[in-house]
């Protein structure tokens, strides 16, 4: 009896820890910081995504987001896979698909796990008509302090999985924009929307900094490992120690970035940023026939989404408030 109790406690904590560390470990080990940098950085190429106007790509991301949000989960799943398949047209397409696919999987696992333990019976009853829970695991009662439901059910996991396709579709399409445009191209496009320069510049610096953030985190984590973190425990626990190292790395990374952010702000302001209300551009990015085709495709996606709703494939999954 005592043994069973201890085993239950141990497994519960392992599920809890690996549930959090799993997606993080997948990003760090399977994709790697280098891989993550690859799918968040621009590389020049000539295929259609690179020739499309960035503005149209922003609209494309918004279209995917709307379609995935207002329709049934499997339309979101189809959109995720379809967008991922277009990665094949990018520079080093096969590798981009591999990395993007792994990232989508880690997003799906992370989101599903993020929702599943918290999904209430009331929510699941709406999501699954005639709801009969299949109990997979019973948590120790004190897990409710963290907001956990008493039991983990198959339906809760499926529910989390369904929700995750919305996130995965949006992230996959947003990455397309980042991988096929330079920050200044996006700056030019957003400027045409009359979005304030300060907001655009923040986005631009963010885009430039994303790869750096992961570089710094990677370095800090590696230094902790080098200094012996986790070396006195089994390799089985490496994901947990990677998570611990990742959390510890956040403060020095942020401080390091903030020190750099000041330089970026000074560099921009001392070069006339916001000197005049209007800004000129040395290279205008035109709207071409290709962009009209792309807009047509987006119209088609929205049309499919609307028809799906009328056919009863609308937003059947409630969101957890």
């Amino acid at each position, binding site marked *: 009896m005592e043994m069973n109790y201890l085993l239950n406690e141990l497994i519960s904590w392992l599920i809890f820890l690996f549930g959090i560390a799993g997606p993080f470990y997948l990003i760090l080990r399977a994709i790697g910081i280098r891989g993550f940098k690859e799918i968040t950085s621009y590389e020049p190429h000539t295929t259609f995504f690179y020739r499309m106007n960035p503005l149209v790509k922003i609209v494309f991301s918004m279209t995917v987001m709307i379609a995935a949000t207002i329709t049934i989960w499997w339309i979101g799943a189809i959109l995720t896979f379809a967008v991922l398949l277009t990665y094949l047209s990018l520079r080093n397409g096969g590798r981009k698909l591999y990395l993007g696919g792994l990232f989508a999987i880690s997003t799906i696992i992370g989101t599903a796990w993020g929702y599943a333990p918290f999904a209430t019976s009331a929510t699941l009853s709406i999501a699954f008509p005639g709801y009969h829970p299949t109990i997979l695991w019973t948590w120790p009662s004190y897990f409710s302090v963290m907001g956990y439901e008493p039991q983990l059910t198959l339906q809760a996991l499926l529910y989390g999985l369904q929700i995750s396709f919305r996130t995965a579709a949006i992230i996959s399409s947003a990455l397309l924009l980042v991988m096929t445009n330079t920050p200044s191209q996006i700056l030019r496009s957003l400027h045409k929307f009359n979005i304030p320069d300060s907001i655009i510049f923040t986005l631009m610096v963010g885009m430039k900094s994303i790869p750096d953030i992961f570089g710094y985190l990677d370095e800090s984590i590696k230094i*902790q*490992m080098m*200094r*012996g973190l986790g070396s006195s425990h089994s390799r089985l626990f490496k994901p947990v120690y990677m998570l611990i190292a990742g959390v510890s790395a956040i403060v020095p990374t942020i401080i390091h970035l903030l020190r750099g952010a000041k*330089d970026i702000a000074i560099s921009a302001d001392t070069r006339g940023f916001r000197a*005049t209300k209007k800004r*000129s551009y*040395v290279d205008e990015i035109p709207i071409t026939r290709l962009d009209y085709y792309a807009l047509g495709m987006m119209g088609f996606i929205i049309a499919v989404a609307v028809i799906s709703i009328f056919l009863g494939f609308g937003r059947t999954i409630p969101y957890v408030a």
Partner: protein
Amino acid sequence: MKAIEIKDLKFRYLGSKKPSISVPYFYVEEGESILITGKSGSGKSTLVQCINGIIPHIVNGKRSGEVYLFGEPVSGQRVPEISRIVGTLLQDPERQVINYKVEEEIAFAPENFNLPREEILEKIEESIRAVGIENLRGKETSHLSGGEIQRVALAAVLSMDPRILILDEPTSNIDPEGTRDIFQFLREEKGKRTILIVEHKVERVLPFVDRIVVVDEGEIVLDGRTDDLINEAHALMELGIEIPRHILLANQMGITSYDIDEVRETAKQRNMLPEKKVRIHGRGAVLSTDVKVEYREGFRLRLSTSFEEGTITAVMGRNGAGKSTFLKALIGFIDKDQALVESPINMGELFLANPDLQTRGKYIGYLPQSFDLMLINKTVEREMHYSSRVRKANGMEPLIKELMNLFTLDKFAREDPLTLSQGQRRRVAMGATIAGGVKVIMMDEPTSGQDYMHKENLGREITELKKRGYSFIIVTHDARFVYRFADKILVVDKGRLAMEGTPEEVFQNSEKFGIVPPSEYLLRYGNELLVE
């Protein structure tokens, strides 16, 4: 006409009791080139930030007095407006470049000023020609070396055609060739516009400036023509400023020439040449390795060498030669998906084939250039105990106490390491690395951006540790530091070991690998360049 005029300027950062800069009166004539120097934290950068408007417009604090640019007060103008007159090049090239392509970066300022497209194109061409970066057209800024990025950043500043150019430690983070190019630009620009250059490398900048201004504890303590420097050399040394050895010697001998050959000849006649440096060798290898790295992008490194016990080995070479890659391969920092890595290590009876970080970290310490990234603990004391705590190693207390004492960290023991000054943080990072019980310590560019005093302190600390049996492998561009403290140099070029030997041996032919011998070496050995 006065390009810059400062009257009764005082500035105090928020939370600081003492003004960081206090200047009753200071002026710069149009077309003058001025070197502003002083030790780290002396107020040099604060002074130039008061001139380019960063203070008071971006950095907050309590400010009184005024700075005038061609008669117009800085406080009455916005920074973007000031930037039409004052161009500023910052220390770290990678942090100031925002755009993806070289031309985009140069066009950034003219675009901000809403200039017509044709004019922007003209500005791009003019700036590229002025800095001599025709070979970088169309390139991606992320693929450039530090020196190349710094020149692109300079071209981007010049595209505004500023009447005043401020260069705030522009060569701190770049290799000697990049440094030479920046100084070449200074030579060509001298007299064409007003230039203020903040630098620690007094020796290299002197030929290109008219005046030298020394800032210490927020005040201008010396403002004179460069010719006067020889009379003030020792006073400047006391202020923590790196003065070339031959100038000190000239001062000591009472001669009024900066010419190194002339100083050397006189010193030779008077038997006053500096002593030969003692280099340690023949103690047996503490670590030997044969490193092979093949990156997916194509860069290859192949380097086979060994390091002696209780010595300091400097790894030198151009940016991108493979120096940092070598260190990272040794410690196991390179991911398998990035490159194929073979870096077997022999350390006496220990053989490490697997590049596993946790295993290698037990025997080798690594201090990265961004050492802040390793400071994860809330107090200095916890940071120093980190390795022994996570490795569950007993008996480390005496070593930690010894290191706390050596690096004068006792008084900061309870403080958060990230709140300390740069020099203190570097000492915490170094102490914490050694406190793991390692005997071989690798350091990636520890001299980068450091002033003379910090470098001297670092040199003294590693020399002391060397005497206690520690071995150091240090990647650096600083030839003077290497000449003063290293026992051996490895020159890496295009991923290969190009030269290996004592500083005296290597400096004979190092220029072809972008390494300029320091004046201290030239003063001792002259142009004869013979190994004695």
